[in-house]
């Protein structure tokens, strides 16, 4: 009767059952159950997306606060990304998690997070969105601290508290928005009635900034980015992949929802908030790249990269221009697939070799050629070399940045993006170089093929292909999006 709830509730309930069930399951059974759950959920999501009736009021929290779901284009993009990454990473995990304890707990929370993410994508008003945003934090932090080492637990807590901090900052905004809007339902173009010049409006600008900061935490924006580089290396690789590819995107989704669906771009355009946001985004872009460039540990390097790349998206959002927004959305997908792949590859490397630092990985390309080829391809994508997805999204971002009505940032923005792309090359390609060209002193006799298990390579391969496909056929997506982007801006 409420089909829209199915992709949300099914994985959550499945995950809860896994958690509550006290006895240990046999590993095969466990992975079988989890895998089928993942697939079923994916199917459910797709079928729900195809549904005719796309909104549902579940019940009312208070008199005027409904729990409300609706599906629009943004939901589609994000839920597709979610499904792909979660299913891939999930299958990858079946191989990867062999060497971890308490798999059942991992899968349980993984499923819950999946469901919650679906809920987040389908959320139709700010309260529902906030509900799932909190739940997302709560269900994903066990993934981070799963390994149970002290660093992992600390990282998990750090993730938790940073996220909650952000969530509460935005809750502050929600309180005020509720008073100044009739409803909190997401409506393209915004629902705020106040003008930015009025006293209320000026305060609302402050509120908007707070919310940007708050949701920006999830998206790893500058002042509150520090949880990302801590959480990623500590989490198991599939969890990192999901985290970096999808969960941090929840922050992006949140910002899109709040800025474009509640405040409305017009409200913020040209205000100090936009300037500040742009500044922060660009600072983060540059800083993330620099830090990644200096970082020897592979997963941490990727984490910094995530910080940087996410702010590409935020930059695109902050420009408030159609092209830039489009670029941002494309980058959501491209970065999602690419970064997911990269983390999975890093996981595969750690799983097979046990090495974490880049400088230890001499000749890895000889040992795991398929994996490293994938690595090289997606790296190029992230750098923005055509014909990969990264190129298209960065193109749009740059175009938008240059065209946008953003004063001096019109020049600074693209410049920073370019420099950062250069740095991206600088931190991603050395592994390729080292891996394939280990140098003269590499002992070829000791070389042995160590290609990881199929459960690992297939998801990697799948996502690599996807990332390339986006670059090859961006029109499908842009066509799909153009109309509704113009309705937003």
């Amino acid at each position: 009767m409420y089909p829209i709830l199915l992709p949300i509730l099914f994985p959550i309930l499945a995950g809860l059952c896994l958690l509550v069930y006290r006895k240990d399951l046999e590993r095969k059974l466990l992975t079988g159950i989890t895998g089928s759950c993942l697939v079923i959920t994916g199917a459910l999501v797709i079928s729900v997306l195809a549904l005719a009736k796309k909104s549902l009021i579940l019940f009312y929290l208070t008199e005027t606060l409904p729990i409300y779901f609706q599906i629009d284009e943004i939901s589609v993009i994000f839920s597709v990304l979610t499904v792909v990454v979660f299913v891939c990473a999930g299958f990858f995990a079946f191989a990867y998690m062999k060497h971890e304890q308490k798999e059942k707990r991992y899968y349980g929370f993984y499923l819950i997070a999946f469901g919650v993410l679906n809920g987040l994508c389908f959320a139709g008003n700010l309260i529902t969105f906030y509900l799932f945003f909190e739940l997302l934090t709560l269900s994903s932090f066990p993934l981070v601290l799963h390994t149970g080492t002290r660093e992992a637990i600390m990282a998990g807590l750090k993730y938790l508290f940073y996220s909650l901090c952000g969530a509460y900052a935005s809750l502050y905004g929600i309180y005020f928005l509720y008073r100044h809007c009739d409803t909190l339902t997401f409506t393209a173009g915004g629902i705020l009635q106040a003008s930015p010049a009025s006293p209320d409006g000026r305060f609302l600008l402050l509120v908007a900034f707070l919310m940007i900061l708050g949701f920006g935490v999830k998206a790893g924006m500058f002042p509150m980015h520090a949880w990302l580089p801590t959480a990623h290396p500590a989490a198991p690789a599939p969890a990192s992949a999901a985290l970096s590819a999808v969960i941090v995107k929840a922050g992006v989704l949140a910002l899109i929802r709040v800025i474009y669906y509640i405040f409305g771009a017009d409200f913020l355009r040209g205000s100090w908030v936009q300037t500040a946001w742009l500044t922060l985004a660009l600072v983060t872009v540059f800083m993330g790249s620099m830090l990644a460039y200096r970082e020897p540990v592979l997963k941490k390097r990727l984490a910094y990269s995530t910080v940087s790349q996410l702010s590409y998206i935020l930059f695109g959002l902050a420009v408030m221009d159609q092209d830039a927004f489009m670029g941002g959305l494309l980058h959501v997908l491209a970065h999602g697939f690419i970064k997911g792949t990269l983390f999975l590859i890093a996981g595969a490397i750690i799983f097979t070799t046990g090495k974490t630092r880049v400088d230890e990985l001499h000749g890895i390309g000889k040992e795991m050629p398929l994996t490293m080829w994938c690595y090289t391809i997606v790296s190029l994508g992230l750098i923005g070399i055509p014909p990969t997805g990264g190129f298209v999204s960065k193109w749009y971002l740059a175009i938008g940045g240059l065209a946008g009505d953003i004063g001096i940032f019109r020049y600074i923005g693209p410049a920073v993006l370019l420099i950062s792309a250069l740095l991206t090359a600088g931190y991603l390609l050395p592994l390729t170089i080292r891996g394939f060209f280990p140098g003269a002193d590499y002992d070829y006799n000791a070389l042995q093929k160590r290609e990881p298990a199929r459960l690992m390579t297939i998801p990697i391969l799948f996502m690599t292909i996807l990332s390339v496909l986006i670059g090859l056929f961006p029109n499908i997506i842009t066509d799909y999006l153009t109309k509704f982007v113009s309705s937003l801006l």
Partner: protein
Amino acid sequence: MSKRKPAEEYHKTFAFHFFSWLRGEKDPYLGNVEMKPQKEYEPDPELHLRHEKEHDAILDKVYDMKHNRALGLFHRLYQATSILFCLFLMALLLVTISHLPATGAAVKPVNNEVAARYIESGLEETGAVNIVAGMILDYRAFDTLGESHVLFVATITVLIMLRLDKNKKGEPNPLTKDMNPNDRIYEPKNDAILQMVASFLVPIIIIFGIYIILNGHLGPGGGFSGGAVIGAGLILYLNAFGFGKTERFFTEKTYKWICFFSLSFYCLAKSYSFYTGANHLHSIIPKGTPGAILSSGLILPLNIAVGLVVACTMYAFYAMFRKGGF
């Protein structure tokens, strides 16, 4: 990010902390979130005891008069303020006095109808020639009743303080142990000159006292003064002849009964007169002829009673001070 500094020093710099935060390695607040076990609060049972002992020690120190300089200083300060206060009081009193009615003037508030009536009709209303005696024993007799009881209660307190009683088992009072043995020579020396003069003077003194008492309503004198004179005579006798002699006619019992009867008489007599006065009844006590010995109603008996009490009391005071008993 300066590499010029050695690592340890660099670790202390702000830059290091900033960059380590930037890298997400360290967090100023969250680093402490994971609880370290705190020290369990263990109430020390001895602690309180010790505190109280320390408290006592401090008190000891405080009350160590000779060595406590702060206390000495306080003392001096206290004295200085007291002297200032007294000087202030003196000045205040002098100013006050300078505003009081002039001494010796005939017209001033004091010389009002009250004094006038005492003088003008005192003789006929009380029958006493001595207006003062009439006043204190008739007009304002209640004061005098109280006054004699002041004396009585003072004797009682002196008795409490100084009387050395044996306890039930007949052991001497533990307080005697405190006494310096030399103080216990109660008996005076047999001083011939003293005895001689005393045997000559004591009767005269006592007779003089009796005279004063009996003439209280006629001239200067009265129960208190006469009693004091008799008491002086008794004390002289005691000093000359010692406790042994006086005990033959004056013991505690004597004292007790004399006091009892005198005071009872005083009380009852005055009660009668108060009662009749207040209820506007006629007092049956005759006033007599003014100027005669047997006159002025109750004044003479009262004077006698008071005189007895005072004489005994005076003697009792002396005996108590001297020996702690009769």
